């Protein structure tokens, strides 16, 4: 069947569905949707629809990005805008079926927003909500809109038109189009994708390889997972276009085994593309052969580094090697190879479809287009977001993210995972683009963005990242293997209250030498969390070392608990719960914590009834309390 016929059929199917008199419900069933209870909601819907004998189609879709509102459904009734409902429980779902599907009450009290033409009274338009208003969906264009397990909806929504156009162009013309679009590598470093393609294209040799890096290893990052689960076809189409442009006939997707749903959807998508002649031999009758193979990673963070990744595909320990030669000259099995990450590939088809100038219309002068971020940590609206380059961090945290929970203060924004850094609040108006983030000492990174509030200790968080890179260091080069260990030891001392004068200077020296001498990106960027926290939060290090004080009250060895004599009523709860019997007291006696016995578990702090709040948590100071239990003052008793 010609692609033209396939396309026409897919479009007519899609239109039939859009205009169908049968209502349909789209259920978010990405990994986080499922983890939040999406399957229960799906089951409830199936049962309710059957029980009440309602005609309705149920469709599983990927993540629309509003993770904070999962489980999430979209109800589409003919002639009306569709309605999104979030934070569902099986009970609420049943109510929606009864009131809106069977009846005609869209339940504005439960609805998040509407999509499509028309309005419903009392329900805002979804894309007018602060969380979505400033987002631009290019890479995530199909996520949450189409069924990711079926190829036809993708085709009906413009899928494979980019490939169709590319196959009609010369290879060099395709590369020029990507260059002109200004697309830069979304894996973090931001190297211009078209230039990288050119290197591979120009390299001599008949056998070339293309790789999609889906080894999303940064803790706190889930953009690529959501994209692969929600729209696998766009990534695959991008890979096919790139393989054609560079003259590769085999492409690999290196994906972490921790993402079973993404793997399953890729496998199914590849099969469907092969059946339609969009992958394999003689793609779209152009005479071009391209095959895509999936390689499952086996759990090694360093395999996100391109030379390590290739070693892993070849079946070896995933250890990096020095560059040059760069993969474009000598990569997989010594052949010219190009590696781009999932998000970069997903942008390729739409650039070919709509043209380079269209894409370059988004973003800043040097950073074109959009960037996906996974917004997580201490923020009200966690989720997967896609924003135009040049947006400010303030807009992301406060408008899209809805600010910090429980009215706490924002302290820092972490971008780029263990290779990135912390950005303090005074840089909130920083433009999100490759250059600005690098200037602030962090990196764009692959898109993890973790928000930290006043309860986060920066020294401890720097230690957390370093313990991660230390554990994931492959051990090949000395600076990384030993440097991360030494830095980690120093940070452990500091957070344990054993920091010494000179530690900060030593940390800086180690960080610089690691940065300059490590073999690969993992080691070279490992000191970034330490360096940026030292730059912006140096006072926290100094307080830990010199005053033995942790301002966030997080570092266990630096906090103490005291029972305030004028608040304690002698109820005895804390003494009964203390796991080490460090609290002395008695009936109607002011209780006292033996500091030498206390293990700082915080149980007393948690169990002291809030009407008394007699237990305080302090750091770097002592609180005047009796040394032994004394009777509770009569006045306090009378008050009760």
């Amino acid at each position: 069947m010609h692609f033209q016929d396939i396309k026409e059929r897919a479009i007519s199917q899609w239109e039939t569905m859009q205009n169908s008199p049968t209502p349909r419900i789209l259920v978010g069933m990405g990994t986080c949707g499922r983890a939040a209870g999406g399957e229960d909601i799906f089951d409830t819907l199936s049962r309710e629809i059957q029980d009440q004998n309602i005609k309705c189609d149920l469709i599983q879709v990927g993540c629309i990005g509003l993770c904070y509102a999962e489980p999430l459904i979209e109800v589409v009734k003919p002639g009306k805008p569709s309605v999104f409902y979030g934070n569902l429980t099986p009970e609420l779902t049943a109510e929606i079926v009864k009131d809106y599907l069977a009846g005609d009450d869209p339940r504005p009290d439960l609805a998040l927003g509407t999509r499509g033409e028309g309005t419903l009274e009392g329900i805002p338009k979804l894309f007018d909500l602060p969380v979505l208003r400033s987002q631009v969906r290019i890479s995530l264009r199909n996520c949450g809109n189409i069924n990711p397990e079926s190829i036809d909806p993708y085709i009906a929504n413009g899928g494979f038109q980019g490939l169709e156009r590319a196959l009609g162009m010369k290879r060099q013309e395709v590369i020029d189009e990507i260059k002109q679009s200004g697309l830069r590598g979304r894996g973090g470093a931001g190297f211009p994708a078209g230039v990288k393609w050119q290197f591979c294209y120009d390299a001599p040799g008949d056998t070339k390889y293309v790789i999609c890096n889906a080894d999303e290893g940064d803790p706190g990052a889930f953009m690529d997972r959501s994209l692969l689960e929600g729209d696998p076809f766009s990534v695959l189409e991008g890979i096919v276009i790139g393989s054609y442009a560079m003259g590769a006939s085999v492409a690999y997707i290196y994906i972490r085994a921790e993402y079973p749903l993404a793997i399953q959807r890729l496998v199914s998508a590849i099969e469907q593309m092969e059946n339609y002649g969009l992958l394999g031999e003689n793609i779209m009758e152009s005479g071009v052969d391209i095959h895509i193979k999936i390689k499952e990673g086996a759990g090694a963070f360093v395999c996100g580094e391109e030379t390590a990744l290739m070693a892993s595909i070849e079946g070896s320990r995933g250890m990096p090697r020095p560059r040059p030669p760069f993969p474009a000259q000598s990569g997989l099995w010594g052949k010219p190879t190009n590696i781009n990450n999932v998000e970069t590939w997903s942008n390729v088809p739409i650039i070919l479809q709509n043209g380079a100038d269209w894409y370059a219309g988004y973003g800043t002068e040097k950073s074109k287009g959009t960037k996906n971020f996974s917004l997580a940590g201490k923020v009200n609206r966690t989720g997967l977001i896609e924003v135009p380059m040049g947006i400010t961090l303030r807009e992301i945290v406060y408008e899209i993210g809805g600010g910090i929970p429980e009215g706490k203060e924002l302290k820092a924004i972490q971008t780029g995972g263990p290779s990135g850094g912390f950005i303090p609040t005074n840089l909130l108006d920083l433009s999100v683009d490759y250059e600005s983030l690098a200037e602030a000492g962090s990196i764009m990174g692959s898109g993890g963005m973790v928000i930290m509030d006043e309860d986060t200790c920066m020294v401890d968080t720097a230690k957390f990242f370093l313990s991660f890179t230390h554990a994931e260091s492959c051990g090949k080069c000395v600076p990384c293997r030993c440097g991360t260990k030494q830095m980690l030891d120093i940070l452990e001392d500091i957070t344990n209250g054993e920091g010494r004068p000179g530690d900060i200077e030593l940390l800086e020296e180690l960080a610089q030498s690691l940065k300059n001498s490590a073999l690969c990106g993992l080691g070279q960027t490992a000191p970034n969390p330490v360096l940026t926290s030292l730059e912006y939060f140096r006072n926290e290090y100094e307080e830990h070392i010199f005053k033995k004080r942790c301002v966030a009250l997080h570092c266990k060895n630096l906090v103490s608990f005291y029972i305030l004599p004028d608040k304690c009523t002698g109820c005895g709860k804390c003494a009964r719960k203390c796991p080490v019997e460090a609290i002395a007291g008695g009936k109607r006696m002011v209780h006292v914590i033996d500091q030498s016995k206390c293990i700082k578990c915080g149980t007393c702090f948690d169990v002291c009834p809030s009407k008394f709040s007699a237990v305080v948590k302090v750091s770097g100071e002592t609180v005047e309390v009796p040394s032994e239990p004394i009777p509770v003052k009569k006045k306090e008793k009378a008050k009760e």
Partner: protein
Amino acid sequence: MVTTETVQDPQSGLQEEYIESQTADVFSLFKGGKDELIPILQKTQQKFGYLPEPAMKKIAKFTHIPESTIFGVATFYAQFKLVPLGRNVIKVCRGTACYVRGGAEILQKVEERLGIKAGETTPDFEYSIETIACFGSCALAPVVVVNDKVYGKMNVSRVDEILEACKETS
């Protein structure tokens, strides 16, 4: 780390024929190329739940890769286990989002309750604790996964509840 010396391997009595037939099943899917080593190890681990030494020796013969190299690859990647896991595997996420929302305290509590450290298995092979770099479900942080069931928005006081749930199912 628990080693084979300190625990009784419940499958140490694996019959030679059993290993032979299981590995033969795995090998039938492959040609024996060097680049297939990791997928072969993954399939083998699926069969046994870990990588028994005799099976690794058979892989060496099949792929013509030295045993030492196979051991090197198997120990490099976090996914491969050289000792069997417990019946219940408790995976605690150590991702950044989970960490800032108290993941470390949850891990500590699980370790206390089971009396083993992350990466270890209880002597009765009931429980193993693992840490995972990131589940990519950061919106639900902190996350604990028990035998593939995801518990999101965890807190320390729910640790007992999830351990109880293990008992009921096993």
